[in-house]
């Protein structure tokens, strides 16, 4: 190197540093461990009061009690039925409307207008109406979740249909493919990735709405459990319930990931 500089030549300087943050799974898990350890430390030393935030150990033990008492399964099975039922209803209806809006001029503007007007309404505001419409039993819980799932599914589905590359549809038309073939062989698979990614959104909305749904006279269910714990200021149970919801969310997203990989292997 020194010889180079003597000769009036120097090495070209490397200048593309930074701006390339890398994912590091170890750091991700590490950060969880550190946060939980600090939190436990704060609780143990009394720095964080037990009322303000139960210690991780307290949450774990609440969770453990929930498991061994068998209550967890009772709550979980009640909630899963509602989640699944509501999600299916909302998704089927949303897909149907979404495809209509995506493909037909007559459905487009009215559909988009209605969806944009109704989507932003907070579902929790409508609970009293749902109770009147569907009673206080399971139907109104299904309805709450289905309602929450319906609108994003419509939006995603017609977005997916819109995003099917126009050139592929033109290609189909240029080969005189019949309308139904184009829908089945081009539009449907072309919209699938968007629809599947919409499932992620709608499933997390369903999980969030579980709490609202179980506000309506539910004896069992993770949402009802969280609400009861909140009412009684049993914060350890409350957080245990939230942890269960989060794990539920992770499971659902893992399942959707599998579905993705299976259906979208061509990507």
């Amino acid at each position: 190197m020194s010889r180079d500089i003597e000769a009036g030549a120097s090495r070209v300087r490397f200048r593309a540093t930074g701006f390339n943050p890398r994912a590091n799974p170890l750091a991700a898990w590490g950060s969880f461990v550190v946060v939980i350890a600090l939190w436990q430390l704060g609780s143990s030393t009394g720095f964080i009061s037990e009322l303000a935030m139960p210690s991780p150990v307290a949450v774990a033990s609440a969770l453990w009690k929930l498991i061994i008492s068998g209550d967890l399964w009772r709550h979980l099975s009640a909630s899963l039925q509602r989640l699944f039922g509501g999600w299916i209803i909302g998704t089927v209806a949303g897909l149907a409307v979404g495809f209509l809006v995506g493909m037909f001029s007559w459905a487009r503007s009215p559909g988009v207008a209605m969806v944009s007007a109704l989507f932003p309404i907070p579902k929790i505001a409508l609970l009293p109406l749902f109770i009147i419409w569907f009673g206080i039993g399971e139907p109104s819980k299904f309805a709450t979740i289905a309602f929450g799932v319906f609108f994003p599914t419509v939006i995603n589905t017609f977005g997916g249909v819109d995003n099917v590359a126009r050139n592929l549809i033109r290609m189909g038309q240029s080969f005189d493919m019949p309308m139904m073939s184009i829908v089945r062989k081009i539009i449907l698979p072309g919209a699938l990735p968007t629809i599947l990614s919409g499932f992620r959104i709608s499933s997390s909305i369903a999980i969030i709405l579980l709490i609202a749904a179980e506000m309506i006279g539910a004896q069992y269910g993770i949402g009802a459990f969280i609400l009861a714990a909140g009412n009684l200021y049993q914060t350890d149970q409350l957080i245990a319930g939230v942890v269960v919801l989060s794990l539920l969310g992770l499971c659902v997203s893992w399942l959707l990931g599998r579905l993705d990989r299976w259906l979208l292997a061509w990507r």
Partner: protein
Amino acid sequence: AAEKINIASLAFVSSAPLFIAQEKGYFADEDLDAEITFFQAAQPVAVAIASNDADFGVTAFTGGFFNLAAKGGLRVIGAQLHEDAGYDGSAILASNAAFEAGLTSVDQLPGHSIAISQVGSSFHYMVGNIADKAGFEIDSIEMKPLQSVPNMIGALKSGQVDSMIIVPHIAKPLAASGAGHIIGWVKDYVPYQVGGLFTSQRNIDERRDVVAKFVRAYQKGVADYRAALLMTDEAGKLIESDSTAEILEIVHKYVYAEEDAKTAYPKIRNGAMFITEEARLNVADVAAQVKWYQAGGFVDASVDPASFIDTSFIPALAE
């Protein structure tokens, strides 16, 4: 075969006559196959009847109840709790901070905040009723709707609200533990018909005999309740009767069931408010309540109490 009926209820002492009637077989005696469904809040009990999910219910009167009763075909046929000068009812509590700052009696409430569960709830009405009778403007008190009783207690304990009104079995331990001060009783501002027994118009129209049977069984439960839990000596102090132990055991199956008898029984006794004989309803007070709610805009002006009160099963309470 026994007629099936579905009763909507809260797991509170206020529903004790139902539990007594169920456990002592009064429903069965009337050839009724009764099933009790529990709810977490008062409002859904009314909705359950309106939507025909249940046949009978007992719950407190609220603005929402009256609106629903008028629009949804509910019929009030009897009484639930009643504030009576002779028995402890709901208490008015002041937080420690407010008490020390001078909130020692009810007429000093103006300028202070008070926790209620929801706008148009019975708590809201009680504040209004007290304000009326004590002679101050309800607007001079700052309402804090906190959605639930635990939130109200938490806010009072931490001094975030100055006062609240709460049932005796919560008020007494709170005061005893030094978390607040009782500065008055709602019973001093009577009459107050706290809640009612009700069914749907459809049941009255289509199954009048079943309603009558249910009412008879319920009244038997009320009689047992009064005999066991409302017996007083000459000084007006509550005393135990022969049946007290038996009734406490029955009620304990439904209320505070997860606690043991030693802690639960005093709570049940504290919570056992007055119920009129034969569950007679104070119709005039209900009308007065509706009027108050209407004045505040909480109940639609078109609501007429006469349209949802049916005294043909249980005569109204005499003035």
